[in-house]
């Protein structure tokens, strides 16, 4: 299984590039919409970039289940495992 800290660091870089948020703000318990103010279109850009970076598939129907950064990290860790 991929290291979750590595996934978090990689995901934080993707979120920073898309939103301009500092990577330190991207914590496991943060909600993409409520805390980070990421809209549905930016979320999809993040998902596609994450797919490429971690070599995983995140289907459209799974994206709505990724409420927090932690959800995304877990999904990627399992998918990559």
């Amino acid at each position, binding site marked *: 299984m991929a290291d979750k800290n590595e996934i978090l660091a990689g995901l934080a870089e993707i979120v920073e590039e898309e939103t301009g948020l500092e990577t330190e703000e991207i914590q496991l318990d943060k909600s993409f919409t409520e805390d980070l103010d990421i*809209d*549905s*279109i930016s*979320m*999809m850009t993040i998902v*596609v970039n994450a797919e490429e970076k971690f070599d995983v598939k995140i289907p*459209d129907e799974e994206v709505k289940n990724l409420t927090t950064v932690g959800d995304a990290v877990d999904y990627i860790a399992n998918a990559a495992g």
Partner: protein
Amino acid sequence: MTAPLKPTTTVQATSVLGLGVYRPSTVVDNEQICQWIDSSDEWIRQRTGIVTRRRAPADVSVVDMAEGAALDALRDADTSAEEIEAVLISTVTHPYQTPSAAADLAHRIGATPAAAYDISAACAGYCYGIGQADALVRAGHAKKVLVVGVEKLSDVIDNHERSISFLLGDGAGAVVVGPSEEPGISASILGSNGEKWGAVSMDSSLLRLRDALSEAQTTGDASRLLDPEERLWPTLRQDGQTVFRWAVWEMAKVAKQALEKAGISTTDLAAFVPHQANIRIIEELAKQLKLPEHVLIGRDIVDAGNTSAASIPLALHRLRAENPEISGGLALQIGFGAGLVYGAQIIRIP
């Protein structure tokens, strides 16, 4: 032995000879939209790029708008209606299942007895039309073809829903396609993905409305007809996230295929004119294609909204009006939408 058939006279190359548009007079700004949905001018601009959209009044029909654009295109192409041997209208908002909008338009502009039919390919409809016109001329079926992309989307929206209605506008764009010495239209890339049939779709069929009317007439109870929650008039809906992913990352591949088939690269382009779905799709597509700085990008959506089949010719017309030097240059155009369907080709700008 039966008598041999005379071979068809074919044409080697085609080009777009002229371009015209019709923009309805009514301007709907974001403040008006916010009377119907809980939103703000700033939110709509950030999420979509749209500042205003044009909508046609009740007494202006799909064919009226198509006629305005067609006559403008014929003038621009220095072509008379009698020279037109096929009329193709791409639309999903002509309110008659039959007869076609194209047959009415051909008669109105004096292009009879041109072949006339409508194309239902939503936001890809204009590129489908260009692909068909190119094929009809090269195969010798028609010397010149009129292609119109026209929509009156304001007839098929629910102003109170949030997925798509606030994006949409009305309008028409038209071109004349004819034979040329050198290729002015590249091989088209046309395709579909029916697995995502529901990603952009009407929320019900007209049969549901018919059955509710029938029920009311039988029972004398019209309450269902009067209940706005029943939403008996079909209107558009979309799954924005699914569409966004497909429109950017899958369509970037299609755009690259179109360039490859044309034997050119992005550095050869003067303009990039994607379907005007959402400014963020346009910007992300441009980013994926790594367009050089000199390539002008159609961003007509800011003032015109998303006009489905009309959006590419409207955006190209505006780019040319604001930058006349691009006339004679190459434009990559790509349409994508409900179906899901897509079409792309490179044209030399008239």
